[in-house]
């Protein structure tokens, strides 16, 4: 029997199951599909950041030869949105435009040029309103009218105030208290593939292929807006060209092509232009942050008060969750005995922000890591040592009720410290190293919409020697299909190539909530494990009956079950049991704390990362060159170390891009650089040497002990860059991205005797509500945490 110590598949650096189709150009992405009679769709978008729509005249557009259908918001009036509490979007807006790029009308035509010309022929009469373009403007009384008709006061979307433990008492017993303000500029996912969707309408059923991360949420949104039962809609995830969180919302173009297919009876495809991808956005929120921490003389945290203000853009998207995430995980990295969090999200006339890799947590991670660096220097302590004294411990509950199980913070720190030589680094101007740590979820513990159903389900069919696994999970390039195949193969004594996969198809696969919140390996992996073990029990029983021995004596592995080949046993088992199917599912444990808002933050397990960045910074030009990044990531167990490394390296890359150059900013209501040339992202020449260390803590609840790898390793990179710039030049850059202009300006201030810092001057007055005081968990719950149950 497969023992935990001698895996045949788990832990092996195997190529992805779909590697050949990806390197030969045979993988079929949504825009590669062109069924006969396909119509092309283009969407007319608002040229104004904020404007009432007075009238829409489509008559001229309809007269253009080749135009088959023109629709407006009147055809799709029902609102939708990813969160049940913010159903505030229309596929095509009827009443007003809330950002440049807001969809207004759509055309299906025989080719794309005709569709574009027809969009130009649509006459829209607008009443232009004053745009709200900043957090400060959103907090003030609007000149014309509010962007949305809910939330408030003014353009505030969401306010939250929570306190865990006695924060005032914590500050009172502190030997030192420090306050800092930080700003994290927004940025976008920039997937290489532009969003694309194609729909057909046949036999009264809609089928949609899309480059989405979550077929289930698209399915739900289509049913709602098209007013069709879910059984008459099929959503299939096409080969995916990169998401990073940006394809997790249901999008206007997905609904529009389905509607146009229903009207025309022909396949309809819409691929966004690169400019439109910048408007679809749902990327990193710009966040202004204020943090105050009390510490004892030896650097132990006694209390923390954290305030955030998120610039949400024009719609809700995942924003309520993002807001909570800016406050939730501070306590999962450091042991904070008393903690107050006040969060605020505002609406502005910009493309809506949402989840990007790390969802709501890279911003506070940046703030808290630099803040603690500064406190250590105030106290004359080594920052690494001070942070270590406050590391959260395994098998504990945090003050805000989050359950920590396995935790490799210490080991991760030791690995990067040793490898980088941080402690003995050469100290000279212009050369610096920075250190930071982080934690992240292995899947959100609660679903987007409230329900008690499993978050992931897997079915397995064995039929005349062949194994097929069915799961709704969407492989977005991270290799979730390969993880599913590895788990099933391991349990059945096969290799991943022996397992056929059917994934991300709402007609043929059971539910999985999709590729977001780093949930797939943990949740779909556990569901696959259960389904495979159930199938194995059937096969072992059939083999034991044939061999005349007990099931305990049957060894499964290397393509054999007992003395028989896998194929032989499948025939015996099918004869014995009939059709061979099995199922497995995973429901996260109910571990959220007893307070409103506790649904954001809990996860069945947290990953941990530590990072050291080594760089050169030029005092004259402010230019930064990263030479090395050492990163250690506690992934619980690496089901496939090759794929884990890939996720860690990709996270480091994306973190460096955010730290140094990526920013989504606006001028007079317009996106400053909606193109790949002007929106700067790191090229091959910008990437340093990345030294990756996989740390395995074998989580008690993860499949084979595995946790997440796709998002957590991004988090420490950004503060480590800024800390390294301080190490090199003695100036604090309290704002992301850390650009040459900011460094030069901070050095100029330092020379003039001003504070050696570039960052936001202060934090605005925000009408946070009365703080909800939450009793911290008791010691008894700590023991529950040590013995988790599914």
């Amino acid at each position, binding site marked *: 029997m497969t023992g935990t110590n001698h895996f045949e598949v788990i832990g092996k650096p195997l190529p992805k199951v779909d590697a050949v189709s990806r*390197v030969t*150009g045979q993988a079929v992405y949504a825009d590669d599909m062109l069924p006969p009679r396909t119509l092309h769709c283009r969407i007319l978008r608002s*040229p104004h950041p904020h404007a009432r729509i007075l009238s829409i005249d489509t008559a001229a557009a309809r007269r253009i030869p080749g135009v088959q259908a023109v629709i407006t918001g009147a055809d799709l009036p029902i609102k939708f949105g990813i969160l049940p509490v913010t159903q505030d979007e229309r596929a095509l807006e009827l009443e007003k435009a809330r950002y440049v790029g807001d969809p207004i009308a759509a055309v299906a035509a025989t080719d794309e040029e005709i569709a574009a010309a027809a969009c130009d022929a649509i006459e829209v009469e607008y009443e232009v309103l004053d745009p709200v373009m900043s957090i400060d403007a959103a907090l003030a009384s609007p000149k014309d009218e509010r962007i949305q008709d809910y939330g408030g006061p003014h353009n505030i979307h969401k306010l939250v105030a929570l306190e865990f433990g006695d924060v005032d008492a914590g500050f009172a017993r502190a030997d030192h208290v420090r306050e800092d303000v930080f700003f994290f500029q927004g940025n976008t996912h920039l997937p*290489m593939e*532009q969003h694309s969707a194609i729909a057909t309408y046949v036999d009264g059923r809609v089928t949609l292929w899309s480059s989405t991360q979550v077929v289930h949420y698209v399915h739900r949104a289509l049913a709602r807006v098209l007013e069709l039962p879910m059984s008459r809609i099929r959503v299939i995830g096409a080969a995916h060209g990169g998401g990073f969180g940006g394809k997790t919302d249901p999008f206007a173009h997905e609904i529009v092509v389905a509607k146009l297919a229903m009207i025309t009876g022909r396949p309809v495809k819409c691929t966004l232009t*690169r400019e439109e991808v910048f408007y679809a956005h749902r990327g990193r929120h710009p966040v202004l942050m204020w943090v105050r921490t009390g510490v004892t003389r030896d650097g132990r945290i006694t209390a923390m008060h954290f305030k955030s203000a998120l610039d949400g853009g024009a719609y809700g998207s995942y924003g309520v969750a993002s807001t909570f995430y800016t406050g939730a995980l501070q306590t999962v990295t450091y042991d904070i005995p008393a903690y107050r969090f006040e969060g605020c999200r505002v609406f502005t006339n910009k493309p809506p922000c949402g989840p990007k890799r790390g969802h709501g947590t890279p911003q506070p991670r940046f703030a808290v890591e630099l803040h603690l660096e500064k406190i250590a220097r105030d106290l004359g302590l080594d920052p690494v040592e001070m942070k270590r004294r406050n590391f959260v411990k395994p098998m504990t509950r945090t003050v805000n009720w989050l359950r920590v199980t396995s935790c490799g913070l210490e080991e991760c720190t030791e690995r990067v410290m040793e490898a980088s030589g941080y402690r003995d680094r050469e100290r000279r101007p212009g050369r610096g190293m920075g250190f930071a740590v982080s934690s992240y979820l292995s899947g959100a513990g609660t679903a987007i919409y409230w329900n008690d159903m499993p978050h992931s389900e897997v079915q397995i069919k064995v039929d005349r020697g062949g194994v097929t696994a069915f799961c709704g999970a969407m492989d977005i390039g991270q290799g979730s299909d390969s993880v599913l195949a590895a788990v099933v193969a391991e349990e059945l004594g096969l290799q991943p190539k022996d397992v056929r996969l059917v994934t991300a198809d709402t007609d043929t696969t059971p539910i999985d909530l999709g590729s977001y919140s780093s949930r797939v390996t943990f949740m779909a992996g556990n569901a696959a494990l259960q389904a495979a073990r159930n199938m194995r029990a059937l096969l072992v029983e059939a083999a034991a009956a044939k061999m005349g021995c007990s099931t305990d004596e049957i060894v499964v592995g290397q393509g054999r079950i007992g003395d028989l080949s896998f194929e032989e046993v499948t025939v015996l088992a099918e004869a014995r049991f009939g059709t061979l199917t099995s199922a497995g599912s995973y429901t996260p444990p109910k571990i959220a704390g007893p307070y409103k808002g506790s649904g954001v933050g809990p996860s069945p397990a947290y990953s941990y990362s530590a990072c050291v960045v080594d760089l050169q910074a030029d005092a004259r030009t402010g230019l930064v060159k990263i030479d090395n990044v050492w990163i250690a990531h506690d992934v619980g167990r690496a089901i496939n170390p090759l794929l884990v490394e890939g996720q860690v390296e990709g996270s480091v890359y994306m973190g460096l891009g955010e730290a140094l150059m990526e920013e989504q900013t606006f001028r007079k209501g317009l996106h400053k650089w909606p193109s790949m040339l002007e929106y700067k992202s790191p090229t091959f020449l910008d990437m340093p040497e990345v030294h990756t260390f996989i740390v395995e803590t074998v989580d008690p609840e993860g499949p084979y002990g595995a946790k997440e790898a796709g998002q957590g390793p991004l988090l420490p990179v950004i503060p480590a860059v800024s800390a390294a710039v301080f190490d090199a030049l003695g100036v604090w850059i309290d704002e992301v991205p850390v650009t040459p202009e900011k460094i030069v300006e901070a050095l100029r201030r330092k020379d003039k005797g001003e504070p050696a810092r570039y960052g936001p001057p202060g934090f605005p007055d925000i009408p946070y509500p009365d703080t909800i005081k939450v009793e911290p968990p008791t010691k008894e719950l700590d023991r529950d945490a040590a013995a988790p149950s599914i």
Partner: protein
Amino acid sequence: MRRGSADYARRDLRREVERPVDRQVLTLEVNGERIELLLPVHKTLLEVLREDMQLTGTKHGCELGECGTCTVLVDGKPQLSCLLLPIQLEGRAITTVEGMAGGSELHPLQQAFAELGAAQCGYCTPGMLLSARSLLDTNPAPTRDDIREALAGNLCRCTGYVKILQAVELAASRMA
């Protein structure tokens, strides 16, 4: 109150569709096969490959010559197919990702990309492979900096370029 003006990134196309389109019969040589096509003269090579020849292995990320995703080889040199017009290309040898493997035998670069996980979402991979192939055809033993330089025009958002670098090195060593 004022009328909305089309002040964001759009030219007036309405009259364009009414105008007769110039078409020309062209003979292109793609992956060693010659094909005769009747094409509107303004259609890009990228569009012709994907729409008229069903060679959808060539991807697009911007259609403005900024991201490198649509890279193909023209007479062995990497070129951006979104910026080329087929009328420029008669008599030139065009290679796409579909022309890299020998039958079902992968090119050493494809093999190395698959083995080392250098393709995650795989969307930039065809362009990356062709730029790398052009490099190895002219410089069989490139240094790491040679590889970085040659692939600097191909953006990738998944891998951080780390495994791509390793894969090109591995392929070069196997082809030596």
